[in-house]
């Protein structure tokens, strides 16, 4: 598929009819809300996802809240609203580390029975239902599509424009047409994405796009134009480490797939395996984007085992 053909066939606009298309689509739809200290916004998201859906009947089979190590009332709010709460394996590590969005998604992917999953960062102030529905509707209509991203601006946000898009354009030119490979609001086909390795850090989205492309081809990725995102006070784009982690995750994806040679000069950033029993709880720095969850790679612990069929 040429970039022009991709833009023509895989770039969608949200329509008012999309929410209705999801009803009776025959697939199980789920939501995964990635939340870290999101007490101010999480209740609102859950209320509106459950009861504010256009037309009244929300299409969700299950709603997950992946807690990324919150220290506020996030978990309590998730329980109050009847969502399935997935808590980090080790709250202490998750609390001192920067938000491990990828880890949260991996946990939910291991739990979910849904065919399609909408991923929503709780730090977003508003989730446009039209966009959310369009993301899922694109996956419903085309079985070849496995990952559908929202594109809040033509060139993506600053993280995409200044960070990942130039790297992608240089190393994987086919993906240069993707407007926002760092988009935090996206939908995925669980059966296809569950097979992929997933960086367990914040900024995992770009590596996921590259991984999906390498495994399933550019035709498995789509995008939906979205209005500009409004973030709460905890705008993840303001996290100075996010761009670095995103780029590093992308480089590791490409290295593992053989698209680039091993960047030995980055080796010192990899964590040294330690035995917990010997050292006690360790402090994980924001640079530590690994352990890497990769099938057949025993270098890192696996927190989210694939669900047995």
């Amino acid at each position, binding site marked *: 598929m040429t970039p022009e053909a991709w833009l023509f066939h895989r770039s969608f606009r949200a329509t008012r009819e999309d929410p209705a298309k999801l009803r009776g689509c025959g697939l199980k739809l789920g939501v995964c809300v990635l939340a870290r200290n999101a007490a*101010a916004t999480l209740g609102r998201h859950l*209320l509106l996802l459950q*009861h504010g859906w256009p037309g009244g009947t929300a299409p969700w089979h299950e709603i997950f809240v992946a807690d990324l190590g919150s220290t506020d009332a996030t978990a309590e709010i998730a329980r109050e609203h009847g969502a399935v709460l997935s808590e980090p394996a080790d709250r202490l590590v998750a609390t001192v580390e920067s938000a491990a969005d990828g880890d949260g998604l991996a946990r939910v992917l291991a739990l979910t029975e849904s065919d399609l999953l909408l991923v929503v960062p709780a730090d977003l102030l508003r989730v446009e239902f039209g966009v959310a529905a369009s993301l899922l509707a694109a996956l419903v209509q085309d079985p070849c599509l496995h990952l559908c991203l929202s594109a809040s601006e033509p060139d993506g946000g600053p993280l995409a424009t200044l960070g990942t898009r130039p790297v992608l354009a240089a190393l994987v030119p086919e993906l240069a047409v993707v407007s926002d490979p760092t988009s935090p609001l996206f939908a995925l086909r669980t059966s296809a994405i569950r097979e992929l390795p997933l960086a367990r850090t914040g900024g995992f989205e770009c590596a996921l796009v590259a991984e999906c492309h390498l495994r399933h081809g550019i035709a498995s990725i789509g995008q939906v134009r979205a209005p500009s995102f409004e973030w709460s006070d905890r705008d993840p784009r303001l996290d100075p480490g996010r761009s670095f982690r995103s780029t590093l995750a992308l480089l590791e994806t490409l290295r593992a797939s053989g698209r680039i040679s091993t960047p030995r000069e980055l080796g010192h950033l990899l964590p040294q395996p330690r035995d917990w029993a010997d050292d006690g709880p360790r402090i994980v720095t924001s640079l530590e984007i690994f352990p890497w969850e990769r099938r057949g790679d025993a270098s890192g612990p696996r927190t989210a085992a694939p669900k047995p069929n």
Partner: protein
Amino acid sequence: MLSIPEASSRPGFWMGLTRLEADLPRIVAHAVQLAEIPSATGSEEVRAEAVRQLLEEAIGMARIDQAGNVASVLAGEPGRPGTVILAPLDSWYGAEEHPRIQVRADRLTGPGIAQHSIALGFLIGLARTLREQPVAGLGDIWFIATVGSEMAGDLRGICHLFPWLPAVADRVICLQGPGLGRLDHWSVGTYRGELTVWTPGGHCWRDAGRGNALRLAMDFSRRLEALPKPGFPRTLYNPADLRSGDAWNSLPSKATLRFELRSDGEEELQRLIREAQLAAAELCRNQTGCRAELVQHGFRHATGLYPDHRLVVGTREAQSWAGLVSRMGASSSDASVCLHYGVAAITIGLANVVGLETHMETLYLESLAAGARQAYAVAVQVAGRSK
């Protein structure tokens, strides 16, 4: 107006009530969505469009009129009198705010959620319920969200509905968020005036003896303050805003005083207005080069329904049935205009609220069930009446 036994024996009543109670989470969700759309008086377009879409989704048709009101109708049995249910569209905060509503299991917190987004949510919820689960023997019910109901709007939305409104309905129910059990059957007579005083100005020492605009405005205020104001009917004068002055050593050349006169009695209100006009006319007497002008910025008659009016009695019965203790009172709302035009109108509150008109405005969710029962029962009682 039907009594509660009569209303509750209508086919569909209990099914409708059950449906409305089950719909409460959706009503709350819509209220949250609407509260997060700033809708300052005069700039209600975005929220109006959102309400229009929701009403259209609820009952199939809704339109925005020239004034900006959103209106839709649920057709009832021919030959029965019509009913209007109103809720205000405007918010006390403007587009400079970025309102966020915090949702917890027991409460909603954030600007505008109670005043009056929850009323809009109920307006839409009632419309949806009565359409999806019709109650037998109801007349036409108009669901209207009005613009300009806050102070600066001077009720321009409801005013725009006249003289059309009496042609389609002779009973009006105004929904407002705050005050569960509240039953406002009386319109507080209100006069909003702005006094502007102009004087030659000058230096306070060199030009001593010239008129001082600020002092004259304060004299005016003092004179109104000194007027006798009876406790019954309750009457008051409220100086709200005084602007004047330049430098420390200058004689202010202009002063503007905004004030409000309020009374439950029309005669008292008119007496105060006459006194204010007289005071303004006499303010600059014997003051060379001074001028005072009094401009009216809003007026609402003191009028209402007596406690034995069938609408008031029926609403009290509905509130009692919903487990609420009626708190009868007076207010200044869209109902004021209806009452002035001879259309019977009441205002009811829907929820328990604290922190009104602050960023910590908090609505307690457990109060909504009683608010819903009350609003539903009143709507059926009123819409089910025969001529």
